[in-house]
């Protein structure tokens, strides 16, 4: 452990230290060697950033992933403030436009299409429920009448079939669209910045738990790929490759394979130093524990205080103290992990603009929903065409800001 520990010290990492010292003076590297990389390699550059090679490689991540997530969360919040279909459509279009201009060619960027499909499915299911089960919205414009199924008296209050009114359909359509817009916003965040990139911004003490979560998340796509492969293999055995039985029969081998892969990955991660801990003085360790535990207790007590009537006075201060103590514990706990971060994403002016535009959309629509609730939540009884309120629409257009200010990611060869 001793020599492992010494590596923490950056100063001890001088280029001539190990057998690797002369890397930079290699004879011509293999294959597509770049003179640029080699020139840049020997001297540690200012602020740890390489001068980008002209016309060869741009900075890889143009924007902090957190900015994209804040932006889309802002849009999502805005979507919850309104049921005006015109505003929602505008919001979806704005998010779609930014995704179309700024998503990368990476596989996870394709998840956007999946989210759009999911949103459409949600909308359709919502409408189908209204058609089949009816709706409490009183309506006079009957579109069609389904045969009503008589239900026993214990199922009172539930209706199957019956009249379908334009008002009811419109109402559930508006609500469905709101949900769909929310889903599309989440999908946009996933397409613009993979959740794994967000990991890098986690505090050190939480990083390893975060890796475990992300690895668990990638389990699902692998599982789907395995199911596809094994169903194909069923075809090779001359068995039908469709149907539920086919799926059930490959279940066990798929799980076995997934488990084996997880074990292999765990072994690889262990061998690559995952979970290494640094030696910290016992005093620091004890302080960390005390701070974290005390902080969590404080948060619990504070929450209780806030929720009960008589605790109004001490609730907030105790809660704040608890949060502060927990954060300090987290920070101190970070000392136990010797991890460092490779090229942390810079939070620059662009990131402020992107996150700010999202927040502005959310704030303006929240304001509008208070000031002018009628325009943002158009009524369905009596039946009227929704109007586009001018200045909330202009506020939604702010969401397009990233499409123009953020430099585009370099096109990757496919």
């Amino acid at each position, binding site marked *: 452990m001793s020599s492992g520990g010494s*590596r923490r010290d950056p100063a001890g990492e001088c280029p001539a230290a190990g057998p690797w010292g002369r890397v930079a003076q290699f004879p011509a590297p293999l294959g597509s060697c770049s003179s640029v990389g080699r020139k840049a390699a020997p001297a540690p550059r200012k602020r740890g950033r390489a001068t980008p090679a002209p016309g060869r490689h741009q900075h890889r991540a143009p924007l902090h992933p957190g900015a994209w997530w804040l932006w889309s969360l802002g849009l999502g919040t805005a979507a919850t403030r309104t049921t005006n279909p015109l505003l929602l459509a505008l919001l979806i279009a704005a998010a779609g436009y930014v995704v179309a201009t700024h998503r990368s060619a990476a596989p996870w960027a394709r998840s956007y299409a999946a989210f759009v499909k999911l949103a459409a499915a949600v909308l359709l299911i919502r409408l189908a429920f209204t058609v089949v089960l009816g709706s409490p919205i009183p309506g006079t414009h009957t579109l069609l009448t389904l045969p009503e199924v008589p239900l026993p008296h214990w199922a009172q209050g539930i209706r199957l079939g019956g009249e379908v009114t334009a008002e009811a359909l419109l109402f559930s359509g508006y609500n469905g669209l709101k949900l769909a817009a929310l889903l599309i916003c989440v999908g946009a965040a996933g397409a613009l910045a993979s959740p794994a990139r967000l990991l890098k911004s986690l505090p050190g003490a939480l990083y390893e738990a975060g890796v475990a979560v992300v690895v668990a998340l990638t389990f699902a796509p692998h599982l789907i790929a395995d199911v596809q492969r094994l169903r194909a293999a069923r075809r090779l*055995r001359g068995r039908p490759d469709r149907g539920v039985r086919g799926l059930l029969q490959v279940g066990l081998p798929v799980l076995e394979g997934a488990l084996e892969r997880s074990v292999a990955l765990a072994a*690889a991660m262990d*061998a690559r130093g995952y979970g290494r801990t640094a030696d910290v003085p016992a005093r620091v360790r004890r302080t960390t524990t005390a701070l974290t535990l005390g902080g969590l207790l404080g948060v619990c007590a504070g929450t209780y205080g806030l929720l009960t009537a008589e605790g109004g006075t001490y609730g907030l201060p105790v809660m704040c103290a608890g949060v502060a103590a927990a954060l300090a514990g987290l920070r101190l706990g970070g000392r136990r992990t010797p991890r460092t971060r490779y090229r942390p994403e810079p939070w620059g002016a662009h990131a402020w603009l992107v996150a700010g535009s999202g927040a502005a959309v959310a704030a303006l629509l929240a304001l509008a929903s208070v000031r002018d609730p009628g325009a943002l939540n158009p009524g369905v009884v009596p039946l009227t065409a929704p109007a586009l309120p001018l200045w909330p629409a202009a506020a939604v257009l702010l969401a397009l800001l990233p499409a123009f200010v953020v430099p585009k990611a370099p096109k990757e060869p496919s």
Partner: protein
Amino acid sequence: MIRFEEVSVTYEGAAEPTVQGVDFEVPEGELVLLVGPSGVGKSTVLGAVSGLVPHFTGGTLRGRVTVAGRDTRTHKPRELADVVGTVGQDPLAHFVTDTVEDELAYGMESLGLAPEVMRRRVEETLDLLGLADLRDRPIATLSGGQRQRVAIGSVLTPHPRVLVLDEPTSALDPAAAEEVLAVLQRLVHDLGTTVLLAEHRLERVIQYADRVVLLPAPGAAPLFGDPAEVMAVSPVYPPVVDLGRLAGWTPLPLTVRDARRRAADLRKRLTHPAAGGRAAGAARVGAAAAPRERGQATPPPPGTSVPVPSPRRRLFRRTAAATPDPTAPPQIAEVRALAVCRARITALRHVDLTVAPGETVALMGRNGAGKSTLLGSLVGLVEPTAGIVRVGGAVPHRTPPRDLVRRVGLVPQEPRDLLYADTVAAECTAADRDAGAEPGTCRALVSELLPGITDDTHPRDLSEGQRLALALAVVLAARPPLLLLDEPTRGLDYAAKARLVTVLRALATEGHAIVLATHDVELAAEIAHRVVLLAEGEVIADGPTAEIVVSSPSFAPQVTKILAPQQWLTVTEVREALG
């Protein structure tokens, strides 16, 4: 650097130790090759170096393993991470992050190196491994060779003094394998890294080894020594050593170059008894050519075996298709102008291929050239975007699986995918039922291919080669006239490969047509009558094995290179010619 002292490893539930009496020392800066037949515990020895055995796998390790002075009994794998870099058999199981650059940095981040150091080393490693153009690419989009290089790079960045690799080139095409090995050699030569690697394809790696550790049999004590000396007694050896043993050369040559220098005499012996030697060679070539002559519709007239520009080729194909030769016997499989696009990527474009009964065709080409896609479309797993695929008169992707198995069978890259049951017997019963064959058909095939396998063995407990044989038996139960194999020799030792060759030859003689996608040039030389080279989804050459492989430096087998300009493909041929 690495020291094994009287090490034995016994896994839980095993009666016998998997390896025992392991006692050797790998000096710093050497490339040491670990060889032996399948199942002798090579992976166990490698795992003991990184500490994964026994910390991760369980079991009991007796004796002592020290790496750079650290005892693996007291150091967990993560505490050895800064001195040992390990790359397992499957690089995909190794990746933690999604992009190349992050993956290279991951190990260093865990060790807590300073950001400037990390940045510098990532750039160095990108150049060292020729990955600079791929730095932003998601790992999921890389080819096999690229993945292997990224996996090696990801363990190189923390600057380990020891590198442990398990079959680094098995899944790679010859060119990609050479790339990876060149990188390893540079690490050893320029940086003094100690490399310990296990590999079945000795013809690719033996020339780079400074020492060889031979595990001759399960549980037997290993032999440690100079490559040529160990090869003289090894049960596994590459063709160059086989030829050297045949010709009685001492010390044994390990490289094609050494062998060529000594081969003048052998070449003379092979030409002189011209009647015997050439006749035998000709007989083999004749045998290879025979099915092709019968299937005259097979495209290449003698001149077209060299790369053909596709427009001309298309013209030729059109006319051939327009005037079908009435005397031509029915082809087993016919592919015309096949194009396949998957996920916006063109996997195959305008591929023509015909396969006649009794013919063995080897599909070769880079990783990702479209070999597996072509096999998939022949068996109906892949729907063609354009063009025609016919197998035994049926269109594969429209034929119900039940009928299709009697026309064509595919043994996939991972034979385990085909096996569901808990025991060999249950697997065989299911196969007979699926194929509509007489009960017992499959079991008879298994007994033939795998003598000594009991009914109650679990398919998972079989070795790689045995599992392949079982999958082959399952597929053959339906007696398909066309048999497809995807990378059949991956992970097989020479003995298992020889058995496979015998089986496939017998099948071809019975009239089965065989198409195999492979990177193994020695296998192709051994059994293929015809070689089809694919590149970027197109057929770039199609002709008799001898013509195609002799003209290509990366696809020529060792014997061809040694005995050029004479055209010998395998040691077996030479042995027969010498009588």
